[in-house]
């Protein structure tokens, strides 16, 4: 099918479940290839911490199978479906790696791409190829598998992925600080990450976003919420909690969430439930943690904005009012001044068609990007324009 389209130059839109179809630049007049029928776990060795699955396998099925053996995906893939108008919990495992969208535990355990061991796929030349494998350590040839992560289906159709899994921690707890302004909150998050207690989640929610949490104590306070997650066996979590609170004493008195509340709190963040689907725009900004609060402050000079800081401040989810140009110039300028890059995650189709949704590239990187695209997909038929116009 890819061969036929390549010959005739017919564009192909690659879809898993379609949960992220409203993200990226719109693709016009394309045939659709769906991997949804490529389902099933093809290899699972719990004692080797490895699993392979066909690309269209729903993430929920993967996670259920892992949970049955006390394991999980360490990078806690985030579900942007609900924030962009799709149902939650529908994404496929192929799309998780094709978009490299990781959740809160990324800061401790690495991103989706760090857990990808191997892929099978079809490139725009209709060649079946594979890269990597099923073992943890592999430097045989170039790391094409990891190189395809985050390419949003513009280089190849993934048909099967092999990835690392990890054991569920025995228990988890969350330490919460209330009412800190952004700059102090990020300072606290950075200080926590420097402690040898293996913080596995470090977030700050501005007060209006904290009000959208379901935890009855936290949602009604009208205060910002700064939260740190600890995971380990229970003796270690108790001791580390004490150490952490001691080290952060100057930031005030801490609340604690127990194991059950912790699971609930972080799973809400994983679904971005504090950023529900609405008419506003949603930006995702990657920066140096210590620059995050200043960056948000700089943007606020031009537009109202509400922020959810993840990764100790290194990732900012920013909700801003809908405008025709999506505030692109101001947001990208702020990112350039403070260091980092910004992706427009939620906007009307017409807006996404007219502005740069993904961070514009430097001339040298753009040239390499075009070269890589041509190497995989010389006819330019795979998800054309999804990431960059004319590519």
């Amino acid at each position, binding site marked *: 099918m890819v061969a036929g389209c390549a010959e005739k130059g017919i564009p192909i839109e690659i879809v898993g479940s379609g949960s992220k179809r409203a993200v990226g630049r719109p693709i016009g007049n394309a045939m659709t290839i769906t991997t949804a029928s490529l389902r099933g776990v093809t290899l699972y060795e719990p004692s080797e911490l490895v699993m392979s699955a066909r690309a269209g396998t729903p993430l929920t099925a993967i996670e259920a199978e892992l949970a049955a053996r006390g394991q999980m995906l360490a990078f806690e893939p985030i579900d942007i479906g609900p924030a962009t108008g799709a149902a939650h919990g529908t994404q496929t495992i192929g799309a998780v790696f094709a978009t490299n969208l990781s959740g809160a535990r990324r800061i401790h355990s*690495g991103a989706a791409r760090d857990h990808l061991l191997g892929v099978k796929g079809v490139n725009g030349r209709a060649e079946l190829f594979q890269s990597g494998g099923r073992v943890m350590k592999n430097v045989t*040839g170039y790391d094409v598998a990891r190189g395809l992560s985050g390419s949003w289906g513009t280089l190849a159709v993934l048909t099967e992925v092999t990835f690392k899994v990890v054991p569920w921690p025995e228990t988890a707890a969350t330490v919460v600080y209330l009412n800190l302004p952004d700059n102090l909150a990020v300072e606290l998050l950075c200080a926590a990450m420097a402690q040898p207690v293996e913080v596995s989640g470090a977030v700050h929610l501005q007060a209006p976003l904290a009000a959208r949490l379901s935890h009855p104590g936290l949602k009604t306070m009208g205060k910002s919420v700064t939260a740190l997650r600890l995971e380990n066996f229970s003796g270690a979590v108790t001791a580390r909690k004490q150490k952490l609170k001691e080290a952060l004493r100057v930031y005030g008195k801490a609340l604690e969430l127990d194991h059950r509340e912790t699971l609930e709190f972080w799973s809400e963040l994983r679904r971005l439930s504090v950023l529900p689907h609405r008419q506003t725009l949603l930006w995702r900004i990657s920066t140096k943690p210590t620059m995050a609060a200043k960056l948000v402050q700089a943007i606020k000079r031009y537009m109202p904005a509400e922020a959810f800081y993840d990764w100790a401040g290194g990732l900012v989810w920013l909700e801003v009012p809908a405008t025709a140009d999506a505030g692109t110039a101001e947001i990208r300028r702020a990112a350039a001044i403070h260091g980092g890059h910004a992706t427009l995650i939620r906007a009307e189709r017409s807006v996404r068609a007219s502005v740069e949704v993904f961070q514009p590239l430097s001339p040298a990187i753009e040239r390499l990007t075009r070269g890589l695209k041509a*190497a995989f997909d010389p006819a330019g038929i795979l998800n054309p324009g999804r990431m960059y116009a004319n590519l």
Partner: protein
Amino acid sequence: MTLSRLPEPDRGVLARSTAIVEDLEQLIGSEAVIADEDGRRVFEADALTAYRRMPLAVVLPRSTEDVAKVLKYCHQNRLKVVPRGAGTSLSGGALPAEDAIVIGISRMNRILNVDFENRTIRVETGITNLAITEAVAAEGFFYAPDPSSQLACTLGGNLAMNSGGAHCLKYGVTTNNVLGVRMVLIDGEIVDIGGPYLDAEGYDFLALIVGSEGQFGIITEATVRILPKSESARPILLGFGSSAAASSCVAAIIASGIIPVAIEFMDKPAIAVAEAYAKAGYPLDVEALLIVEVEGSPEEVNRLLADIVEISKGFQPKVIEASTSPEHSARIWKGRKAAFGAIGRISDYYCMDGTIPLSKMPEVLAKISQICAGHGLKVANVFHAGDGNLHPLILYNANNEDEARRAELAGAEILKLCVSVGGCLTGEHGVGIEKRDLMGVQFTPADLAVQMRIKSVFDPQWLLNAGKVFPLEAVEMKEAPPESTHRAA
């Protein structure tokens, strides 16, 4: 040994060598260019010493701009370039060629910025791996990847080969710890990829560049993650009556939910040699030894070691010895750390680096013994068991040509065995020159074509580290790179 075929040097280039050296001296100064025979001899090989080639010249630039000048010149004059860090590659990754310019980055070893708050460090890539950790240790941080050559090897070499180390079971390898690089492309253009933030924009070029064995460009600066060091760490020594019991114990530990920082494996021949040399107090009546290290607070370490002892009892351990003090820990590690050197004192050895799925370990270890015995050779095994990265050391006499040839045949059979059970040719040493001709065992022609086209995007004329990674026949037969990958004038 029947060595891999090296590309024929370009006679036209050799004839111009005097003029080329003069040009290089003009470009970056004569003190940065080594052209005399004794000076070049130092660079004729890396740690895979079976291969030696005198380079045309060696340049040791002091800045990214100088690297750019040299690469631009080489590109314009179609000269081959061999990037070099400290020359510790075990796969011939830094092997020169007679018609190539070696660009060594060892003089570029400055620390540019340490950012404890954001937990990153920016360095020039000629810095040694260990010097990165030393720069941040006083504040309680460390740089995680720790290849055993870390005292000498450079970050540049680590990036090129995607180096691992004993602790990567928990902390990952180089690619998992690098955030951004400054790289000089073959035409002299300087590009910045990624930065001091997580997940660079656009395509994941960092993933492609790290592990590209110096074939995409020369990285002169990098930003890497630093991590807070754990409060304490302690090993436990476990001895077993069979290799199968030891490897089953490894699988059971991991399946239990414990992720140790390291699980090292030694078999009987390796234990005997290491103990004779290092006097670490290893038991000599066991078939296999595990060193399992866990970290955390002292209480956490106690609990984890107790759990591991409990798990190990299912596999009839003959020896259980948990470290009780820092001195004790050092003694337990002493034998393992000295093992390669100790074996090197009694024999020449050929070190393999295949990775296999853990569940295949007993079967593969038995077959490795059979393969070596079939060639009339002995083998010792010392390796990272937690991630299945084997290091069989095939013992042979380098002065006996027939024995050397048999060692190489046995090595190739072992690597094919690793691939056949679902593993790979190399877990951390890289393909280089050494395993180049075995790539067809692991990859189809289409798989290799996909990789070679990426090489052409970065280096259309294939000047960077030529003759490595891919079988020469595959490179000679490759299709011309598509027009669009050439740079517009």
